[in-house]
């Protein structure tokens, strides 16, 4: 082999004068996260020979998320998945909390329907979840290759992707189609020139998470849960005005507490992420829920939050990109759905690769069915519909002004200050708008954007 090269922002493709006459595999999937395992599973089921590369010692070992997976998309891949998926708790309570330093308003919804089959969301750890899904890919015939880094693409001088270089002694692996599911940093997609700009820090947030162990009964009492029921709480207004949000999720015998903040905002504010976590843990609405929790793991990961308007090219000659590698995470501070989008995208990528191989055309045009399938499915339909939401949730107003506005409004409504007569909602709103220096026109415009996006 030539001198060692490593996977990173400057990794470069190895060029071949001629396309290799035979390929080791039909499909090579890089990354055994949810996107990669779904892609490998779909391609193997469609009859392809598949290798699934993972740089960590086991699937999930490099991966971090908040902790809730929405499994509906799995109906198509693993029927009755709920009977076997390694779940901590089934989410039956979803809450959104808006807070200031000493106020909090929570919208709390509970549905026992979500606690029985076919379920809705579940908390799970990635080492369990990713390993389980990779296991399905292997059962379908894919070869899992862990502890192996794809250090760069193998390309012909004409630019067609024909495989990857790895850090194994025996080096290169060739395939008819490479599916890059290598996560948010996706050096492979960047190397192939699919991302328009190398610099996308503006659309990246950093998530940090503490896993805090608590006895099962304590969690049930504090969160009002029974049996395997679980709660997720999304939090807005806990990041000192830095664009972002927080979360608190219940596992069986631990809770996951985290904050997610925009990278440029964090750097500009000169605040360290664990300081925000400390704030959150000390907040009067959160402290009683996490008190005494023993930290068992601290973790961090980036999230792509660009949304629909910042998607890269999704296909090249011999190459597809899926999941966070293509920025398909539906995220906006408090809102984090990436695993389901990754599974959906991976599944369509695996199918499109198999179809293109079957048709004998794995060029960019031959792989174009992938984007069409995504546009028809929830993956890009939801992103299209919610394209304005990341901008709104991460805006100055939503981060700095609206939490205070909302909490003051609630405080005004709920406070009893007889003998003064109760104030009307409009008067309260006017007062709060003035106090927080909010432009009524912007407020109206944001309300309309919000209603359009969700309506």
């Amino acid at each position, binding site marked *: 082999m030539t001198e060692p090269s490593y996977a990173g922002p400057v990794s470069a493709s190895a060029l071949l004068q001629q396309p290799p006459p035979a390929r080791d595999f039909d499909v090579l999937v890089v990354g055994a996260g949810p996107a990669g395992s779904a892609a490998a599973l779909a391609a193997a089921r469609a009859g392809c020979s598949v290798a699934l590369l993972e740089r960590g010692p086991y699937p999930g070992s490099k991966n971090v998320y908040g902790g809730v997976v929405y499994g509906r998309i799995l109906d198509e891949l693993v029927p009755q998945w709920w009977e076997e998926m390694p779940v901590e708790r089934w989410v039956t309570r979803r809450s959104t909390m808006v807070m200031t330093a000493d106020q909090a308003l929570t919208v709390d919804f509970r549905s026992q329907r979500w606690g029985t089959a076919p379920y809705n969301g579940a908390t799970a750890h990635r080492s369990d979840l990713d390993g389980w899904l990779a296991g399905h890919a292997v059962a379908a015939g894919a070869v899992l290759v862990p502890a192996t880094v794809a250090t760069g693409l193998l390309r012909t001088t004409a630019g067609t992707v024909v495989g990857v270089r*790895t850090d194994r002694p025996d080096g290169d692996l060739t395939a008819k189609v490479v599916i890059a599911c290598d996560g948010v940093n996706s050096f492979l997609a960047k190397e192939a020139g699919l991302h328009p700009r190398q610099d996308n820090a503006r659309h990246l947030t950093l998530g940090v998470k503490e896993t805090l162990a608590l006895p099962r009964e304590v969690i049930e009492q504090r969160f009002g849960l029974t049996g395997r029921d679980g709660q997720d709480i999304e939090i807005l207004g806990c990041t000192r005005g830095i664009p972002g949000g927080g979360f608190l999720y219940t596992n069986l015998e631990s809770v996951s507490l985290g904050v997610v903040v925009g990278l440029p905002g964090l750097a500009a504010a000169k605040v360290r992420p664990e300081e925000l976590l400390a704030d959150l843990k000390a907040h009067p609405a959160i*402290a009683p829920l996490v008190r005494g929790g023993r930290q068992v793991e601290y973790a961090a990961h980036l999230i792509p939050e660009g949304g629909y308007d910042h998607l890269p090219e999704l296909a090249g000659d011999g190459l597809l990109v899926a999941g966070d590698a293509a920025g398909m995470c539906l995220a906006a501070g408090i809102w984090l759905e990436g695993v389901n989008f990754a599974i959906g995208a991976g599944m369509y990528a695996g199918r499109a690769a198999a179809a293109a191989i079957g048709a004998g055309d794995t060029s960019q045009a031959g792989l174009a069915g992938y984007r069409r399938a995504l546009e028809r499915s929830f993956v890009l339909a939801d992103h299209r519909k919610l394209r304005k939401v990341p901008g709104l949730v991460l805006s100055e107003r939503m981060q700095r002004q609206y939490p205070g506005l909302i909490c003051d409004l609630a405080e005004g409504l709920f406070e009893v200050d007889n003998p003064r007569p109760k104030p009307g909602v409009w008067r309260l709103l006017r007062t709060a708008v003035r106090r927080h220096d909010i432009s009524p026109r912007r407020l109206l415009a944001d309300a309309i954007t919000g209603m359009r996006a969700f309506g």
Partner: protein
Amino acid sequence: MTGQPGEDYREISFDDRMEGTEFRVSERAHITVDTEVCDSCTVRSCLHVCPAKLFVPRADGGILFNFEQCFECGACYQVCDAEGAITWTYPDGGLGVVFRKG
């Protein structure tokens, strides 16, 4: 915010915070920092964004970097604008951070 001084969870030291996370440390430094470039950097974004606190200010005003307890998140190279300051790669297969509760 309203943290009560003396409440146990606020006192967790950074070392304690990192203690539960497993690292299979490689001999090769997967990230290197040319601290001479850092000497002329005024923004120092890495000091704030690196979740593992691997960039630390030195008494003489320079920057010290350790690669061992790295989450491999990528935040540092994403925020650093100085050409050539950070050389960033993934550790070799199987090495580096190993999350169990991710």
